[in-house]
């Protein structure tokens, strides 16, 4: 009761702290939620053997006619390097950025596709080269690998899809052995299901392809701008990268090899904007907590100095030091609690708006409770020093005037 009465005398100060706490909580929970989402994106596994994979992009100078033969020669050379587990030529790879996408449906000439998928064009060696885990069925056999030039659009008779895509297409039945239709009318039988393989995209993009909905087409990809994916034995990545490139240039120096890099480097590059944004959010959250804590310290100190005589009087009338300190903690709890209540509403409202506008995920109740706990705890911590100062005011202050 005492607290309420004294609060009425410093309405504005209490209001300022409440507003600050409310804003802080609203901002904090939304930033932390975004931060959590970015961290999740940055660390989500792609389903390939990331630790032992490197890639390079190859172009031959001029426009050679015998592309397919050259690619096969290159691949054989890569596989002959000691320490190489597998090598494959492909149009795309997880987190690589460049992608082919197409619609896939359950009936021919379906007006709107059931799902969209990113396509990896791969041969019989690709499972070993990518280090994929097969969940059901089989991988492609050498006999079913055709050739696909980069300037033609072809759909195969057999296809391997990820479990995620299988579930999107056949939520209630086993996708293995089913027929799906690519590009409106081309039937393909699902011969295998891969446990997990991320699309070339780093995060959910606006390309209408869900991030794990990938398909594998059994073709030898033929292009003068293609990617080799090479997997090595553990620990031999660096050595193999050097030797393999040297061997490629031995075959012919009339080529341009770009972005020869480990998968770790690919991942680092793919999540540049997420990493940057999460650092910015982290720094702003840190500053926010510091500023709010300082604000609470400042205003409480001000109150303590305003109420010196009153505190002295209470001490003279028998209040213990701990009573005084507890008083300030309770007062703060009341003010900050009001702020937190408002902040929860503000934060949730903001989250709904941001979720619809900026593709932010909705926060869980537990999440916002945790953020509220952080803010309340911080506010209590900030009061410790001013409360101690208040408690140390001697009873004699009551009669000493100012």
């Amino acid at each position, binding site marked *: 009761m005492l607290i309420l009465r004294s609060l009425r005398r410093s309405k504005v*100060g209490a209001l300022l702290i409440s507003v600050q706490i409310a804003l802080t909580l609203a901002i904090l929970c939304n930033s932390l939620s975004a931060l959590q989402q970015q961290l999740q994106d940055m660390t989500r596994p792609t389903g390939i053997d990331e630790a032992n994979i490197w890639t390079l992009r190859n172009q031959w100078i001029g426009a050679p006619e015998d592309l397919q033969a050259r690619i096969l020669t290159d691949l054989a050379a890569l596989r002959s390097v000691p320490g190489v587990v597998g090598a494959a030529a492909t149009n795309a790879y997880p987190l690589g950025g460049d992608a082919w996408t197409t619609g896939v449906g359950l009936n021919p000439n379906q007006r709107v596709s059931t799902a969209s998928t990113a396509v990896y064009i791969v041969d019989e060696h690709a499972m070993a080269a990518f280090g994929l885990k097969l969940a059901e069925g089989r991988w492609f056999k050498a006999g079913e690998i055709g050739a696909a030039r980069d300037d033609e659009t072809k759909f195969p008779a057999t296809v391997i899809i990820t479990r995620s895509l299988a579930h999107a297409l056949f939520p209630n039945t086993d996708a293995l052995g089913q027929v799906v239709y690519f590009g409106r009318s081309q039937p393909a039988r699902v011969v295998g299901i891969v446990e997990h393989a991320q699309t070339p995209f780093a995060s959910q993009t606006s390309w209408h392809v869900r991030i794990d909905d990938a398909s594998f087409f059994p073709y030898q990809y033929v292009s003068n701008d293609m990617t080799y994916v090479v997997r090595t034995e553990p620990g031999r990545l660096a050595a193999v990268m050097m030797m393999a490139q040297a061997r490629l240039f031995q075959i012919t120096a009339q080529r341009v090899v770009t972005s020869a890099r480990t998968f770790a480097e690919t991942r680092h590059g793919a999540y540049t904007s997420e990493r940057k944004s999460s650092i910015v959010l982290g720094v702003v959250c840190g500053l926010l907590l510091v500023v709010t804590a300082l604000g609470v310290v400042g205003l409480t100190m001000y109150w303590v100095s305003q109420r010196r005589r009153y505190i002295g009087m209470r001490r003279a009338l028998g209040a213990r030091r701990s009573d005084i300190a507890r008083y300030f903690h309770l007062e703060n709890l009341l003010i900050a609690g009001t702020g937190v209540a408002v902040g929860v509403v503000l934060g949730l409202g903001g989250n709904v708006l*941001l979720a619809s506008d900026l593709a932010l995920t909705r926060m869980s109740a537990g999440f916002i409770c945790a953020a509220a706990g952080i803010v309340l705890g911080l506010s209590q911590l900030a009061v410790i020093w001013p409360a101690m100062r208040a408690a140390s005011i001697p009873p004699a202050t009551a009669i000493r005037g100012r």
Partner: protein
Amino acid sequence: MMLGYHLELAIRSLRRNLVLTALVVAAVGVGIGTSMTELAVMRAMLGNPVSDKALRLVVPQIDVWGPDSRSTDRGADLELPDQLTYRDAMAFMRARKGVRQTAMYGIGPDVTPDHGKSFPTSGRATYTDFFTMFEAPFREGAAWSEADDAQRARVVVLSFRLADRVFPHTHPVGRMLRLDGREFRVVGVLAPWQLMPRVYDMSQSALRDAEDLYLPFSTAIDLQMTQFGHNSCHSPAPRGWEGHLNSECVWIQFWAELPNAGAIGAFHQYLLDYATDQRATGRFHWAPLVQTHNAREWIALRKVVPDAVKLSTLIAFGFLAVCLVNAVGLMLASFSSRATELGVRRALGASRWSIFQQCMTETVLLGVLGGALGLGLTAIGQAGERALDPGDSPVTRLLYSLDAGMVLITAAVAVVATVCAGLYPTWRASRVQPGLQLKTD
């Protein structure tokens, strides 16, 4: 006169209350620094390239795939293909409905220098009008001629970066450059140039670096130079280069420069007539649907600013609000600790208005100091963000730069925000009772 007196009083009291002054300045400064760092990025991304022509440069969209290609039947803006097929682009080039026009696509030829290894570049196949339309400045030489466009001449315009890399210490104009194993004659070198966003081709990303080199569209088509960009097909394309050119795949950007903004109606009518004509010849089996956008509308339609940047800007401004609430509390404390002094001034005959002015001068001064600190912190924040960005590209340099406009905005926001925060404390200070304060001491 009065202002000088108030300023003197303000400085004196700010110096006396050094801790509180420092805290207010720090609160305002940190808030301003954080929010302005993010605002600068957003402002750079939402730049207004070719501003004097933004209403006259137009991009056509045409419904080549029909209503079956869309999930809804209404042709919402971005549901029409955002690029053109080769044959439509060529038809528009022949029609010459603008003062200038250009079709174009991204290429990635390899450069083989006289000494050293070949390396890949980014390039653009376009028409000579491109340079005038998008105001690309030349350091040396000039664009190729219309005759070069017609004759598929092997000529090339270089960026200053590529020119300095391949032809250091010499004049590149007139020299030969080996591209994908073929000789091209250098006719011009651009001065540093970067559009933000890169409005003429935003098909992959709106924030891309300007290209390393430019060569005639007809030459690139003739040499079957592979496209480096976004190619979108609704149905499988026929085989080979000819098949690609005749397909309904969209991969070409097209821009027309109109004599004035009003001419867009006539241009739109031409497009509609063209689409109607295509239907009559049996190519389209649906009601003709076309759209025309000027450069400004086109930028607004594309989501140029990534969600992550919008979010961090929003959060940074929320943080500024918290800092300002904080500053209100600090100023309240600062003014009320000086109630006695203000009471004395009132008792000596100063009006409320005069006290208000005095406190307001102090507030503005705090805003200026906070703004100065904020500006410094913005520079530090930008250096930090640039350090997080790999590589040093023209785009990142533009994203994290503090131009005169940004300095003005920072100063204005700092002062206005501080004055807003100081209004209530100042008003309360000016309400001080002259007698009361004298009595208590």
